[in-house]
């Protein structure tokens, strides 16, 4: 089978395997297909883990895992549709679908940008790490349990990093087994398309920011401006992201995937309103990040904690929440507060599940006696201070974007903070905490890790900083959209947009977790009677 046919077959299979869970988790939108492909890739990683622990090769497990996940997702999807149909005769679902589906202009803009970014695939480059680690391990996964186990434990495998997370290798192994085209070329193309999917999912955050900013506007012209700037900034962000990735975007390396997936998790989990859909989107991207590379595991753990914290605080910060003990609460309000408590517990359980999910592979690798990774074992050369100096010197040239992002964020925070929270978006501080958390993971690995850090930095600092650089550009892009959407507000503030207190706007957006707000006329949300009413609407959905 030719590389093009094999690529279409593989990505098609990933998409089919992931479309029902993607629909159930993030609903219909321009990024649903990207999420479906990423879920398919995550399923191959789960299949790889089953292959390592139980039997067989990756592909049979992929079919089993995909079928099981699809069935469970379909069950929840049908339950939800039935609930909605009973509430409103099914018309709302259609309205939501129409509101969510992207316009031709959005699809064309982002699609063409991504196609342009993938043009270097014409060059059949296979990167050093791709050949030595990711594609080599893909062969192990394709050969099945017995070979995989022996290779995992072989001290002779010096450079293969057996304990590294499996997603890239299992996705490639599945493509080889599916198509019979066992070439490094196909492997590299599949990895590049996973990078593109994760980048599209992340860019979509900026499109969504434009939509949220537009919802605060009451004139068509201003709505178009906010949404238009969102689309343009999403396309520019895609270009900038592939610029940061450089040749590694299309030569089979794992760094672009974990980095952009983690940045996407910041976008959905720490920037966009904390509703069910956005939390699900961030969970998918965290799973991708954590199952792709060791740095991604650490970063994903930090981000899970931050997202859970933000979600809990956003529930607790409601004025009604603090009055929970009041005996004068109306019955419906009391019911609403009870639901918040349940939601909080659900959030804690979901966070714990994601934490366990991303931590499982390192534990599994240890239990299966995988060869110790040379990057995380052995003796350390130099003191922590000397290594910290070397690390900061090495990563600084790759983070020049901070000279733009920090002033933009400071000015934006001071002048437009209210506009931002008024649009239902999270405080910029959350995004910065996510960026710094991920960067701290990388820096601490260099400082406290083993071996000669100078050599280590020389060969990796440009790749391990991809996450921080991309996250900083996401922050800039979000401020660009918020600022563009606020231009008219600054000149002539309308009572409708300024009267909504930030908390109420945030909670209202939380309440409309499935995008129904997009179909409401502007300002209608602010007329909602009480917090209890808002929460009741949300929780009966």
């Amino acid at each position, binding site marked *: 089978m030719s590389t093009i046919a094999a690529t279409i077959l593989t990505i098609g299979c990933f998409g089919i395997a992931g479309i029902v869970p993607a629909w159930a988790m993030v609903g219909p939108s321009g990024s649903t297909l990207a999420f479906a492909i990423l879920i398919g890739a995550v399923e191959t990683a789960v299949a790889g883990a089953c292959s390592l622990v139980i039997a067989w090769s990756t592909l049979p497990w992929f079919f089993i895992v995909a079928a099981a996940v699809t069935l469970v997702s379909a069950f929840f999807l049908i339950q939800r549709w039935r609930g909605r149909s009973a509430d409103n005769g099914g018309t709302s679902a259609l309205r939501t679908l129409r509101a969510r589906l992207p316009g031709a202009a959005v699809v064309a803009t982002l699609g063409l940008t991504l196609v*342009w*970014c993938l*043009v*270097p695939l*014409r*060059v*059949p*480059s*296979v*990167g*050093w*790490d791709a*050949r*030595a680690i990711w*594609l*080599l*391990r*893909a*062969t*192990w996964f394709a050969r099945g349990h017995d*070979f995989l186990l*022996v*290779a995992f434990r*072989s*001290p*002779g*495998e*010096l*450079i*293969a990093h057996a304990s590294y997370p499996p997603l890239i290798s299992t996705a490639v192994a599945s493509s080889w087994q599916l198509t019979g085209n066992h070439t*490094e*070329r196909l492997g590299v193309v599949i990895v590049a398309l996973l990078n593109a999917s994760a980048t599209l999912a992340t860019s979509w955050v900026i499109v969504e920011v434009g939509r949220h900013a537009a919802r605060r506007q009451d004139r068509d012209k201003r709505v178009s401006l906010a949404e238009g*700037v969102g689309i343009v*900034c999403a396309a*520019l*962000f895609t*270009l*900038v992201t*592939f*610029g*940061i990735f*450089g040749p*590694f975007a*299309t*030569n089979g390396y794992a760094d672009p995937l974990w980095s952009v997936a983690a940045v996407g998790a910041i976008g959905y989990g720490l920037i966009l309103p904390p509703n069910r859909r956005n939390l699900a989107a961030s969970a998918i991207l965290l799973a991708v990040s954590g199952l792709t590379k060791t740095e991604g595991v650490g970063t994903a753990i930090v981000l899970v904690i931050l997202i859970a914290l933000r979600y809990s605080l956003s529930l607790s910060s409601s004025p009604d929440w603090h009055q929970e003990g009041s005996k004068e609460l109306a019955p419906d309000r009391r019911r609403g507060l009870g639901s918040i408590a349940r939601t909080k517990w659900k959030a804690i359980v979901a966070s714990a599940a994601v934490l366990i999910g991303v931590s499982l592979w390192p534990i599994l690798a240890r239990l299966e006696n995988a060869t110790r990774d040379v990057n995380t074992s052995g003796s350390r050369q130099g003191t922590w201070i000397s290594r910290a100096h070397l690390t900061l010197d090495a990563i600084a040239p790759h983070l020049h*974007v901070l000279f*733009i992002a920090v002033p*933009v964020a400071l*000015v*934006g925070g001071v002048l*437009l903070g209210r506009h931002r929270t008024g649009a239902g978006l999270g405080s910029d501080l959350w995004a910065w905490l996510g960026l710094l958390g991920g960067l701290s993971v990388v820096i601490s690995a260099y400082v406290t890790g083993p071996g000669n850090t100078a050599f280590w930095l020389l*060969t*990796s600092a440009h790749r391990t900083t991809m996450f921080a650089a991309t996250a900083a*550009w996401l922050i*800039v*892009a979000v401020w*660009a959209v918020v*600022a*563009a959407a606020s231009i008219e507000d*600054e000149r002539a503030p309308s009572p409708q947009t300024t009267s909504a207190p930030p908390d109420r706007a945030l909670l209202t957006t939380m309440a409309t977790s499935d995008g129904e707000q997009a179909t409401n006329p502007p300002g209608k949300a602010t007329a909602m009677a009480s917090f209890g009413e808002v929460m009741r609407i949300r929780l009966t959905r």
Partner: protein
Amino acid sequence: VILAVAAVGALTFVGVQSVHAIDSRSSQGQARQWERDGEFWDCLTIQAHSLVVPGERVQINQAGLPTRVMLEKVVGGWTTLVTDSKNATVVLLIKTDHARKSCLGSVVVEYAPGSNLHGRPEKIGSGASDRGNGSLPATPL
């Protein structure tokens, strides 16, 4: 207004730079160079396949990190790499030899386990050769 212009301007500036960078990575010259790189690794793999069968226990010569890494890339996915010569059925080595039918000057050779790896090898890899001019693209790490 200033913030919006500054942020969109910065994104546009770096976006345009990225377009140029992406464009420069997809030239015909680059494509030819990387095709040569692929041919080089295919050549070594075919030579290795002429010496060992999949699943065989192979020891890679420990001396010389670059050749060891090269060999691990070539055979690590389909043989079992061992560190102890007692467990190995063959020992593989890459030798530099422009005179033979080499892969850009490199030849995969086989020695018996426990031998001192000097002198004439037991077998020499065959089935592919690429005399070329030895120029491969600089592989970014």
